[in-house]
């Protein structure tokens, strides 16, 4: 197994498929190649999972010199945290391509090319073990997302997509300066000049430097998550993005922010993280409550789910900055679950929109009578989003709340619980208004989901149940890695107590 560069295959297979797609004339052939590429990536990442040893640190590593003159390497590897993200990523991309088979008919070649490049960029972010390589993938993924929203998006797509790019670029370019500063600060103290992430995260840095660098990284990740008040690009991007764009955006792109906090902010800048803890916890709780309240008031289905994302991602940052094992594990489970559930919800909205050409809740109603399959699946994912026990959402939120209460300042946990109650309110109210009641005349003849569409949602539902009933299978993947991070924090004298 060691001789096969399996991570490189997972990473680059979609690119190979993308290049082949460029030269194919026929829609069917283009989809066949894209499906094969994404499916192979998925299968290989499952294979990595099967032979993965949890607790053994970074595995399946590959290292080559890329730009030795500047100390830049092509270095890949996975631990439990990144593996879970890669699995989520390859799974969602495969489903998105399947979904697109039924729904995308315009500029198919360009669409598939863009999606496949996007997959390369996002997978690379989770696999990279060199800071510059990480940064390259972090930015590479901007362009296809920009194109996806800008070309296949709705009416105000240009505004939304430019806003998305400018926001993201602003945050990430400052991070680039911080990465370079890190390179020199580490080099000047240890004599080893390297962009190696593992090496750099083992170093210790002065408090003043930590603070500045933490701020730069924080901006990049907070914009991605997005944390309030950096979230304003998200509703615009979601509303204008095509369905699959929304799925990827909510399902994986937002996770890059949380992943960044866990992988970089905590190990690199423990003292600065401790200083920022209270502020970030406050922002997280605001995000949970504000996102939920705004979602409650939305008239547009996509906006509702977009704001529910803000609320759910608040749990992620709450868990991470509780500095407890439970909180950190919960945050990762919440990211995984949110990726599945919100991805599925955006697919549902997309299917609804394709049939009714309407996303305004007021114009819908009574659809459950006509669409029993759709109604069942939407209800299932709505409940999963609320955090029904036995489904994936519950695990993450419960663990995060546990972590929040363990910080000793209960108010964060208490307020966050309110967010869950609010989520029940907006999801169920939405379901009631859209699916129950009287059917609008215009919607009388619309067809229920076809088999392909249903299959995509069922596949997601299976994993949602699996993660809800057997969370241990997923948690034990990464819990050794998170306890390593916790240990690093403890060694730097960081405790979970908010008030010291």
């Amino acid at each position, binding site marked *: 197994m060691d001789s096969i560069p399996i991570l490189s295959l997972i990473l680059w297979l979609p690119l190979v498929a993308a290049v082949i797609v460029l030269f194919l004339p026929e829609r069917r052939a283009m989809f066949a190649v894209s499906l094969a590429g994404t499916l192979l990536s998925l299968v290989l990442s499952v294979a990595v999972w099967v032979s993965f040893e949890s607790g053994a640190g970074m595995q399946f590593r590959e290292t080559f010199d890329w730009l030795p003159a*500047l100390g830049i390497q092509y270095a890949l590897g996975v631990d439990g945290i990144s593996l879970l993200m890669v699995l989520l990523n390859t799974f969602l991309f495969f489903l998105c391509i399947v979904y697109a088979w039924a729904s995308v008919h315009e500029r198919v070649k360009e669409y598939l090319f863009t999606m496949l490049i996007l997959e390369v960029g996002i997978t690379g972010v989770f696999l990279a073990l060199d800071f510059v390589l990480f940064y390259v993938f972090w*930015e590479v993924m901007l362009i296809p997302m920009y194109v996806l929203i800008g070309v296949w998006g709705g009416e105000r797509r240009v505004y939304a997509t430019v806003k998305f790019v400018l926001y993201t670029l602003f945050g990430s370019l400052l991070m680039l300066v911080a990465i370079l*500063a890190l390179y020199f600060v580490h080099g000047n103290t240890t004599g080893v000049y390297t962009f190696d992430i593992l090496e750099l995260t083992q170093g210790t840095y002065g408090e003043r430097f930590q603070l500045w660098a933490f701020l730069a990284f924080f901006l990049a990740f907070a914009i991605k998550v997005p944390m309030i008040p950096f979230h304003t690009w998200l509703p615009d991007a979601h509303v204008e993005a095509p369905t699959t764009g929304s799925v990827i955006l909510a399902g994986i792109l937002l996770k890059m922010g949380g992943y960044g906090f866990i992988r970089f902010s905590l190990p690199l800048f423990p003292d600065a993280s401790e200083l920022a803890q209270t502020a970030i916890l406050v922002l997280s709780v605001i995000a949970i409550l504000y996102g939920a309240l705004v979602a409650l008031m939305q008239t547009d289905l996509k906006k509702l789910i977009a704001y529910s994302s803000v609320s759910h991602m608040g749990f992620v940052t709450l868990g991470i900055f509780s500095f407890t094992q439970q909180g950190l594990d919960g945050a990762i489970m919440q990211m995984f679950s949110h990726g599945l559930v919100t991805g599925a919800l955006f697919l549902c909205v997309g299917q609804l929109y394709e049939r009714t050409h309407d996303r305004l809740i007021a114009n819908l109603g009574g659809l459950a009578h006509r669409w029993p399959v759709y109604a069942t699946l939407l209800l299932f994912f709505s409940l999963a989003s609320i955090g029904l026990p036995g489904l994936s959402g519950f695990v993450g939120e419960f663990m995060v709340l546990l972590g929040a209460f363990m910080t000793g300042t209960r108010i964060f946990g208490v307020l966050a619980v309110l967010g869950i109650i609010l989520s029940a309110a907006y999801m169920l109210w939405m379901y009631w208004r859209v699916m129950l009641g009287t059917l609008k005349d215009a919607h009388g003849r619309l067809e229920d989901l076809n088999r392909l569409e249903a299959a995509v949602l069922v596949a997601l539902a299976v994993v949602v149940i699996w993660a809800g009933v057997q969370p241990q299978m997923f948690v034990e993947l990464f819990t050794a890695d998170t306890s390593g991070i916790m240990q690093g924090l403890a060694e730097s004298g960081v405790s979970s107590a908010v008030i010291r």
Partner: protein
Amino acid sequence: MQPEDLTSILPEIIITLIAAAVLMVDAFGGRRTHRGLLGLIVAGSVVAILVSVVLRADSGTAFGGMVLTDGYAVFFKVLFIAIAALSIVLAYAQSSEVPFAELSALILFATVGMLLLGATGDLITLYLGVELTSIPVYVLVAIKRDRFRATEGALKYFLLGAFASGVLLYGIAWLFGLTGTTNLANIALYVQSQGADNPWFLLGLGLLLVGLAFKVAAVPFHMWTPDAYQGAPTPSTAFLAAGAKIGAMAGLLRVVVHGLEPWQDMVMPIVIAIAVASMIVGNFVAIWQQDVKRLLAYSSIAHTGYMLVGIAVVHAHSEAGGLMRDAVAAVMFYAVVYALMTLGAFAVTFAVERRTGGTDLENFQNLGRSSPLMAVAMAVFMISLTGIPPAAGFFGKLYLLQVAVNGGLTWVAVVLVLTSTVSAYYYLRVVVNMYMVDIQPRLLPVPASTAIGAVVAIGMIGTLVLGIYPAGAVEWAQAAFEEAGKLANSP
């Protein structure tokens, strides 16, 4: 003068001979010879590049230290000759509208000046190079003399440019008067032994830097740029932006590396101020431009600012070591990347201009449908100019940022990245117009001129290759500097 001196300027001689031959053939043969002339120029350029590289073996000084033939000079010779050849290929596409032979000859003469700038070891050679570059370029801007914009741009450029040359010469005179020499290395030695506390040094130095800042189009000496860029025929603009600017940059870098080390405390703040001003003004003013040529003009001012950041840290102290080498190599690498993407962007603009008759942003609408390949290429150039991977512009900026942070100028690096974010806005506007605007589709493809297509293809392939595998070019730039560094210590 030794006979060897002549072999050391063989590339310059070859280019001059080609230019002369082009003029003669055209005088007797007329328009029918254009295709043959193009072949002659391209072949001659390849020979000149090969000669430059081969001469690398006997690197040293010539003409008593006035001309240097080190790796640095070779690096820029290869770059400049390539830029000239590509610009001429581009101009070939409009050979029926402009006097192609004169235009090619002018570009070649200007190139000789640029070659001298890269090889300069003396302030006199510097001045010669600057003038030899500038005068043909004034004419290049005005070559469509019946066009109002062309004459206006050329006149502004000429008046301000002549003034800047005067200022440059005055600065050189001051430095000569104070040190008794015009040789860069000797000036540095003189100041090291005698001290630089004479306030008149500052005057001479300031005048010298002002003159060069004008030639590289840095703020606040950039006023001529948008008018000259917009007024000139697009192939001339491409040469002006990619060639003349980098030529002056090569000269400036040479002066800073070899001559100004003792004055680093004075030079650094000046260069930093100019760099920061260029990045801010260039990027912010570009936002308001409707004409793509003007937009690229302001963006080129911003890129001057980026390169000046590298020049500013040439003498900075660093714990990591090797900073001077890295700073020079970063500017050199950026010059290559900048030349590729600028030539490419102007080539696409030229193609659009020939089809739609204008270079406004509106003229780019729906290019994604009507000419997919041109549009993809333009998108790559815009992404590269913004500095987003996997295009070469990213590594160019990364290297500059790295030396800036290494040299303790983190705040300048922050200015660089913040203004880059601003630049994303206007570069993306071009992409938005090509792909994301719903109008009656202009389905007329832009004419598939082989000449333009070749330049676009070379620009795009170069941009992507350097973006994915930059190691070779970076190492070459670093090695080129090592040789130049040796020379500086043994005048």
